[in-house]
């Protein structure tokens, strides 16, 4: 009797291991959950393919995918900066696939070797709290140098480079503007005005919206989201310019639902994805030039956009993060 109890116990522990769900698409999304939910709902409506997903930060997603290389838990990675994908290619975790309408996507928004396809473009932007600016009697920042103003002391929140793609994008921009040593010298000075380095790229947006912090650097998609919710925030661009992130999507090597994964990539390269984003006010600039964007804030004609090669980003990411931790955070 006790023996059977023991068998039962072990059985109970092992049972769930054999119960695997099949026939749906499993995805890690770096794109925020609220957007992914809407986009995958539209994809399911179009194709009938159901999507299971979990949201992870870009560093976390890559760490998991690399750790699970021998037994991939998901079929696709969705969203997140393309340099994360480039880093993943070096680890050998992505599968090559050229989506049906990939030719309609400009060259700089897709992988040269068809490992990933761009699904949205997002430049960096400054976001400040309106009341904070008024109280301090300062104008919205229009230069990176403005953020060094002592008025911002202890009032800036921006992302931590160890966990956030927004933060690495910020470093890429600064390196493009000041050169590598100059960029880190600048950040050491900037560090004195920092209230908090947040774990996720958007983490500082709500504190700025509610006045807990004064200003920060964000991807446009996060900043606009806060503005659309009705908070008193001001968006502005630095005159030296900003780099932009290309949000990507790709299939993992060893994907268990390969056909469904290809369907998602085909759908992502079509106009449909861009149209869903425009309709749902998900503020990525679509990678398809033929999708009409209605939000004037996404008009980039007056913004100085700096080009940064994605392969260069991927190659330097790790070294920049380590330098950031060693020189900026630990000073």
């Amino acid at each position, binding site marked *: 009797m006790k023996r059977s109890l023991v068998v039962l116990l072990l059985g109970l522990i092992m049972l769930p291991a054999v119960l695997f769900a099949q026939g749906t698409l499993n995805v*890690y999304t770096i794109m925020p959950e609220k957007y992914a939910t809407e986009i995958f709902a539209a994809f399911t409506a179009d194709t009938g393919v159901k999507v299971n997903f979990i949201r992870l930060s870009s560093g*976390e997603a*890559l760490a998991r995918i*690399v750790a699970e290389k021998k*037994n991939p838990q998901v079929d696709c990675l969705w969203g997140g900066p393309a340099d994360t994908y480039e880093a993943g290619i070096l680890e050998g975790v992505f599968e090559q696939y050229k989506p049906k309408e990939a030719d309609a996507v400009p060259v700089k928004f897709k992988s040269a070797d068809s490992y990933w396809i761009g699904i949205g473009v997002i430049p960096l932007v400054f976001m400040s709290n309106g009341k904070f600016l008024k109280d301090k009697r300062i104008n919205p920042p229009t230069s990176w140098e403005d953020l060094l103003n002592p008025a911002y002391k202890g009032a800036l929140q921006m992302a*931590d480079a160890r966990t956030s793609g927004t933060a690495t994008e910020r470093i890429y921009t600064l390196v493009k503007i000041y050169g590598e040593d100059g960029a880190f010298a600048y950040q050491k000075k900037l560090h004195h005005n920092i209230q908090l380095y947040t774990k996720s790229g*958007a983490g500082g947006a709500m504190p700025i919206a509610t006045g807990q912090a004064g200003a920060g650097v964000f991807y446009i998609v996060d900043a606009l989201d806060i503005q659309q919710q009705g908070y008193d925030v001001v968006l502005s661009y630095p005159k030296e310019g900003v780099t932009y992130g290309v949000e990507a999507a790709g299939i993992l090597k060893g994907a268990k639902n390969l056909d469904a994964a290809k369907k998602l990539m085909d759908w992502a390269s079509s106009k449909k994805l861009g149209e869903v984003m425009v309709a749902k006010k998900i503020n990525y600039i679509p990678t398809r030039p033929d999708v009409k964007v209605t939000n004037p804030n996404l008009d980039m004609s007056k913004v100085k956009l700096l080009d940064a090669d994605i392969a260069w980003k991927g190659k330097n990411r790790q070294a920049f993060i380590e330098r950031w931790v060693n020189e900026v*955070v630990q000073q």
Partner: protein
Amino acid sequence: MPSNITIEQPPAMNSSKAQRASLIRKDPALFSALIAIWLSLAIFIFLPLVRLLAATFIVNGTLSFANLSKILSKAYNVRAFYNSLILAMAVSAAGTLIGYLFALAITRTNWPKPLKWLLSAITILPLISPPFTSSISLTLALGPNGMLLKALGLGQLNFYGFWGTWISETLTYFPVAFMVLTAILTTMDANLDDAALSLGASRWRMFGTVTVPLSMPGIANAILLLFGSSLADFATPLILGGHTFPVLPTQAYLQITGLYDLKGGSGLSFLLLVPALLVYLFQRSLVGKRSYVTITGKTGARSQFSHLPHALEIAVGAVSIFISAFILYLYFIILWGSFVKIWSVNNTFTLDHFIYVFSHGRKAITDTLKIAVVSTVVGSLLAVVIGYVIQRKKFAGRRVLEFSSMLNYALPGTVVGIAYILAFNEKPILLTGTMTILVAAYVFRYYATGIRSVIASLQQVDPALEEASLSLGASSTRTFFNVTVPLIIPAVLAGMRYLFIHCMTAISATIFLVSVRWTLLTTRILESMTELQFSQASAFSIVLIVLVFIADALMLWLMRLSTRKFGTTQETLYDNTGA
């Protein structure tokens, strides 16, 4: 053919081999149970730990300290190590002090019953919430431009870093000290109070020379428990620590998730493992010596505890009421945030966030409940078997079994989580992405409370009852189910209660183990917080707290019912929170 002599058997003097042979023959049920227990411990406790040590100390196939020295060569990591210890000391000191004041308020005053009830009810709130719940509202209250700071006209507090983390962890963990100390204060002999007073001591002198010295074991126990909890806490410093106050669990997490450096993360968690184990061993030896002294029922009539000196009673009242009000205020912010449209901008009432939680979050809710229920059932069955074997049977390696079975409990959650990915990510035991890995992480970590309460309860049950059953011809298995189990049911339920609470609220180990198929409410709350969805994070928290509260009340009711039915008076101490 089970025998009735196993219980009476004197400590074995013969060689272990002969003993083992005789064990198979004499008590085959025990033998197979032991094999099953050791096998499950090998898989779910030793294997992960060995993999963690290997990842830390083996470089290119040879033993090496290169990983560790690389970690220790970075000043930031060394600072994280010291910070962890400093924070743990500060939290355990403050938490124990507050817990003691609350316990005095409950046990040594003649305040009205409803007030006492309210005070103890409020201390339950932090226990049944995820460990980082208070950090959301604490930021809004005391953070930069915080509401409370503004309302009181105070300047800025240096919130992110030590202060915020310390305040938040103290509020989260002091209820543990409160429970430990209330138990010890109520089990003291009140006649000693009378003796002191009738010998002419003042109330102050009595308090200083009787109450405090007799509380010492409880105080020491509480300090160690809080020290361990704070050392292991990962979510609070992740949210409130900022860059100025790195601690080891968050550094390990960032190393893995940010730099995808599993080796560095393992090394950092190894640094955490050493002080955690030391504290655990120290606490075990302390409690081990003392624990059963206070449970003996007094037969003589009990006199009333004398009350606190007047000035002290006022101080106790002021502190406990102030802190209770503050906790209520923090939870009120969360409740309010879950019902208004856009926090602090549009304060119209809405149910949208709860609709979101029950539509988009339904999977997280059902997954969490399923995992918690399965873990609770499996965990308490295992706890009964292990506790029974340890307390009632004699075999070689009994102490080792007891220690090993509780090893995961002593380790910080981050360490367990990292060790589990290392161990179960590859064949032959491939469990990542399954429910099993989550259940196993919970079971082998939190069944410890169950094991302890089963052991404690068995110590109070006279073996003569079982012997009677055996000598009347029942098999040892039948005796176990028909005599032993009913007698210890209240203890089992007490263990189940805490197991369930932990499964619903813990995050530090399982944040590494959630997958597309199995997700948890706590990770969804953390996720909502990083996605600026304060209202949804609040709604998720409220739902979680209500669920735990209902389940907890249900189990408490069952406990009372079973206590009445089976007549054992069994008090089990809640002895660790294990974030």
